[in-house]
């Protein structure tokens, strides 16, 4: 795997997927180094916004050299990105982070992929990279179930939806949908808001199974130098020598028992 680098790339396409949710494809050789659960950091052009914005990789087309990023407009930086069009240039830093260890799911296992809100996109590349039985459980606020068709294409008949307003699938969250559909996974992979990840961790401990959680934290450097984005660890972290790991470099994916969330 090549080293991390900052480069100027071209936007291949961008479209609106759901209100506030954008689907951007970027032509970049970084795609060749990218794996599921990793992220890149995009730089706004507006110089009043200095820091790059970490965005998870939804799909990495290694042959074509294209990254697909599905993100939510959350502030000034992402608002600027949403106006990019095919052919525009964009500076990005990548590939960052330790992603999902797809290899931990053996072929005989059933893996549950749990995603909530803007935590849903990285599960798509994971679904492609897993070589086992997959149950994809994704939670949304309402009927704007972005990426649903992409997941159906990966795991036909095994995509389960939860919505907060009950408009599609199970009314409730992904854990409600997991139980309602009688899914009994051997291993879990999850990305979503903190309360969801806490519930996933608790479930994994009760069931005695492995769960890999993708965490989020405010970042500055994205490469492990600034120690801005730490999470609390159960044991003394081998790098920091305190109970802190760096979400950007030691994570963002951690086994549930390693982290205090």
């Amino acid at each position, binding site marked *: 795997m090549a080293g991390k680098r900052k480069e100027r790339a071209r936007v291949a396409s961008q479209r609106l997927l759901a209100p506030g949710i954008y689907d951007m494809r970027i032509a970049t050789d970084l795609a060749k180094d990218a794996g599921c659960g990793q992220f890149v950091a995009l730089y706004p052009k507006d110089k009043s916004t200095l820091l*790059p914005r970490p965005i998870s990789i939804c799909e990495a087309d290694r042959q074509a050299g294209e990254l697909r990023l599905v993100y939510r407009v959350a502030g000034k930086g992402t608002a600027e990105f949403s106006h990019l069009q095919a052919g525009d240039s964009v500076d990005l830093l990548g590939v960052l982070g330790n992603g999902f260890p797809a290899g931990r799911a053996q072929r005989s296992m059933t893996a549950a992929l749990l995603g909530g809100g803007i935590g849903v996109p990285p599960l798509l590349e994971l679904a492609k990279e897993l070589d086992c039985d997959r149950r994809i459980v994704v939670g949304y606020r309402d009927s704007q179930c972005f990426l649903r068709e992409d997941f159906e294409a990966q795991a036909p008949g095994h995509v389960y939806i939860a919505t907060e307003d009950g408009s599609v699938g199970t009314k409730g969250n992904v854990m409600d949908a997991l139980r309602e559909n009688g899914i009994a996974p051997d291993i879990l992979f999850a990305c979503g808001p903190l309360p969801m990840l806490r519930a996933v961790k608790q479930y994994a401990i009760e069931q005695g199974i492995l769960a890999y959680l993708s965490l989020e934290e405010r970042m500055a450097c994205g490469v492990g130098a600034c120690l801005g984005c*730490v999470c609390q660890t159960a044991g003394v972290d081998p790098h920091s020598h305190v109970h802190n790991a760096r979400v950007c470099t030691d994570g963002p994916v951690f086994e549930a028992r390693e982290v205090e969330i």
Partner: protein
Amino acid sequence: MKTSVTIAGVEFKNPVMTASGTFGSGMEYGEFVDLNRLGAVVTKGVANVPWAGNPTPRVAEVYGGMLNAIGLQNPGVDVFIQRDLGFLEQFDTRVIVNVCGRTVEDYLEVVERLADTRVDMLEINVSCPNVKEGAIAFGQKADALYGITSRIKKAARQPVIMKLSPNVTDITEMARAAEAAGADAISLINTLTGMKIDIERRKFVLANKTGGLSGPAIKPVAVRMVWQCANAVKIPIIGMGGIASAEDAIEFLMAGATAVAVGAMNFVNPYATMEVAQGIENFLAGHGIEDIHEIIGCVNR
């Protein structure tokens, strides 16, 4: 063309350093930057024992800059000597270790542990605004600064740089106190204490409520303070605060800094240090300047 500078008898191949806390010990940015190209790597603050730092969120972006309240998380001097110094030994660059502590004794313990290492200089952190004990407590009163500086000077085997805080009424008073106590150099500025409030949540953005402001937003303040100190003391100054380009660095040199450090902009452009070093060379060549000393402090002559 001569780009080398000397501070307290230590020669640096060029005046470009890394600002403490923005570059780790060089391992992470070694993937982007040829560390051999730098005048010095200034490490993140090291204490006598591991420090866990502050709760998150620790960083926030603000207009033209950022706030941080990391709280000097570090693995402690023993791990640092073995791992970080071991790593830095591979490179042909100077190593300046930033030292932090809660009490004078904490600082002295680190200084003594580093005495027999290859470390070229010590930078004493009396200016971090994000910890409750130590650090800035020693850097906001001239007599306290004088006291810690003289005790560290007695114990230190390497030349001592005192890193000054801009969060004072008159920074020249601090510079004079450091000089009078025997400091070999001063570095400035550390971050300016700031705050950001999330108006939707009606809450502080940083868990620590306040944080240190850095980035281009603070550069004019930093240049002014370097100029003030250059006219107040004879010891060399390492200037920093929002340096993003060679042009920024040259402003600091002209204001009177013998060397400069790139800080928050490493986060924005991981190649910033190398680009600044190259840009200074290009400036000197482009202006027919034989020796960088021709521009150091030139506005004061």
